[in-house]
């Protein structure tokens, strides 16, 4: 299928929006590299998750495994080979892919809730093992870190002399911190988005959608659905591996808690919140959750008192006491409530909300056009 002209426009807009994000996000206080990196990394994670859940409807509750595997592999690549980030990314994705093939091959034998439980079981196994017996590889509770004594074969061969202090991650000499780190993640996000766009528009994506709407019928028409599902699962696992290795690049540390099932739950939340099965929805979800997490967790009672200062004193105290439960430490409460509201009233997420509003506006404007016309005919 040839790329529609429209798609290039989408890509151009998306690329421009991503690369200029530091500019247009700074008025709302999100224009600094740390947060922008988070947006990009979790954006990749959510896009990948959406390829599986959004297209095929298979709800995986263990996607964080691939995130964790990507992180561990990337850190090992820093430790053993070189501080260059490219090998770390490649190895991270490959390793996550290997895990995805294994877990996917077994889990995809069942569908529905059994699939969710199977992925959850594999995730819990990996998490528990990473904490206990695999400590030589994962460094258990402390998390895997760089040390000065790491071999770093390739770097040592290139430089010859041991550098002092902990080296930082680089891309052919450019240090991956601050904005250069963000732009590296941003480029990865753009490529990831492009691939996901191609998948959505391709016959392969169409087949995945057909599996979601009616797998039985799909099988009766002579398709063996499992290879398609497995491919989607592996692709989505590799996205997660990419996200994990990017996490390790921006902060060379990998811990087992990245694999816990609540971490898998987070990406589900983000995808649902934005809109499952849509292209930009997951990104919106990531943006909303990570942005408000940042803002809300920083708020405290003093800030609230300032915000509600216009109210009379007694009312201000009540409002602050109630709102205080939802900010700072209580940010997860807000998240839970928000998430419940979305699932109850707007199962399609923010994207469905946008669609409804735009449909409503279009309906109004059409009515407005028709009304004078009706009057004119009535007047005759």
């Amino acid at each position: 299928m040839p790329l529609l002209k429209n798609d290039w426009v989408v890509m151009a807009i998306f690329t421009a929006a991503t690369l200029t994000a530091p500019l247009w996000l700074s008025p709302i206080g999100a224009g600094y590299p740390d947060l922008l990196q988070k947006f990009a990394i979790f954006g990749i994670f959510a896009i990948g998750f959406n390829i599986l859940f959004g297209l095929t409807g298979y709800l995986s509750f263990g996607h964080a495994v691939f995130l964790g595997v990507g992180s561990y592999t990337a850190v090992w690549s820093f430790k053993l080979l070189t501080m260059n980030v490219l090998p770390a990314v490649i190895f991270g994705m490959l390793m996550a892919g290997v895990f995805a093939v294994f877990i996917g091959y077994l889990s995809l034998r069942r569908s529905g809730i059994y699939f969710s439980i199977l992925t959850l079981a594999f995730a819990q196994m990996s998490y528990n093992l990473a904490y206990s017996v695999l400590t030589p590889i994962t460094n258990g509770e402390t998390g895997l870190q760089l040390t000065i004594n790491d071999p770093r074969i390739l770097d040592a061969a290139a430089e010859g002399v041991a550098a002092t202090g902990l080296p930082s991650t680089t891309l052919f000499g450019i240090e991956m911190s601050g904005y250069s780190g963000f732009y590296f993640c941003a480029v990865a996000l753009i490529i990831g988005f492009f691939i996901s766009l191609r998948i959505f528009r391709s016959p392969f994506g169409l087949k995945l959608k057909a599996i979601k709407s009616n797998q039985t019928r799909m099988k009766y028409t002579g398709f063996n659905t499992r290879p398609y599902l497995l491919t989607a699962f592996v692709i989505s696992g590799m996205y997660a591996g990419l996200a994990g290795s990017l996490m390790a690049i921006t902060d060379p540390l990998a811990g087992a808690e990245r694999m816990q099932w609540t971490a898998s739950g987070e990406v589900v939340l983000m995808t649902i919140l934005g809109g499952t099965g849509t292209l930009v929805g997951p990104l919106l979800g990531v943006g909303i959750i990570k942005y408000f997490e940042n803002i809300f967790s920083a708020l405290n009672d003093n800030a609230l008192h300032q915000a509600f200062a216009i109210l009379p004193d007694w009312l201000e105290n009540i409002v602050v006491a109630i709102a205080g439960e939802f900010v700072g430490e209580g940010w997860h409460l807000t998240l839970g409530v928000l998430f419940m509201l979305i699932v109850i009233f707007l199962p399609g997420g923010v994207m469905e909300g946008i669609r409804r509003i735009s449909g409503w506006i279009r309906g109004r404007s059409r009515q407005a056009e028709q009304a004078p016309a009706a009057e004119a005919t009535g007047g005759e």
Partner: protein
Amino acid sequence: MDAILLQILNGLDKGGAYALIALGLTLVFGTLGVVNFAHGALFMLGAFCAVTIQKVLTLSVKVKDESITFFEAFKEQPYLEIWFGDVGTAIIDWSVPISILIAIPIMLLIGVVMERGLIKHFYKRPHAEQILVTFGLAIVLQEIIKSFFGANPIPTPAPEIVAGSAPIGALFGLGEAVVYPWWRLIYLLFAGIVIFSVFAFLQFTTFGMVVRAGMHDRETVGLLGINVERRFTIVFGIAAVVAGLAGVMYAPILPPDYHMGMDFLVLSFVVVVVGGMGSLGGAVAAGFLLGILQSFASMNEVKSILPGIDQIIIYLVAVVIILVRPRGLMGRKGVMED
């Protein structure tokens, strides 16, 4: 031999908690067809019933400490002790058993409100959405608890009289050295009683008969002019009570903290699936079975052969069961086999 006996008891104990939670889960699934991810939160709420009641009973006032005469010393003394003397002290000591009585109506109320307020609207929605909304509810509940009680585990001791260990070794002729905590034995007994009464309730009452009929064929029961939905609401309440009681009794074994529900939830889902979705007997059997398997896997002899097996045994069993026999150990044919 001693070790094996102790591990069996340990396993039965853990299995008792799994079985109680899984029983409620599968009861809700069998009757309402809802996959309830907030069930672990109900377990947690039960444990915090015990914590709250203990806190209420030990509400204290500062009084002068008479035993110290060198300087003005103050100590906290609970109101109950001041008002009722030794009886008050005894009441405080027995706070956990007392909580059981109070937890029953509270949990029933919570369950009914939850079903009428939220779950009711999700009968017709896909399983994925049920999972998601109850997952959200679980987060909300545990965050509320966290904001009231803080993030740290709160020790909730059992009554003094059963705080020690029972000399079970003498009972089985294994020597005096083999002992086991009284409270854990009581927990095991309690779990057995609760499970037995739930089964008796379903088997020997008219209400239970209707519920069982409704589990089999909801439509026909409805056509016979029976209000199935109201009965199912009560079933949800009962499931909440069972989970809550499991939580209350577990409080002295594991000091409750806000995320204990989530920890148990994953395991009890695995238990339900292994036992067979919608099969009550299966849930109980699988609960005890997995509990025993887990405690045997954590024996040092086993761990030295297969390192790490204690961490994954339950999930491993679950994976094998789902792949080989998707309807679980005792699941009905044709129910959720896909």
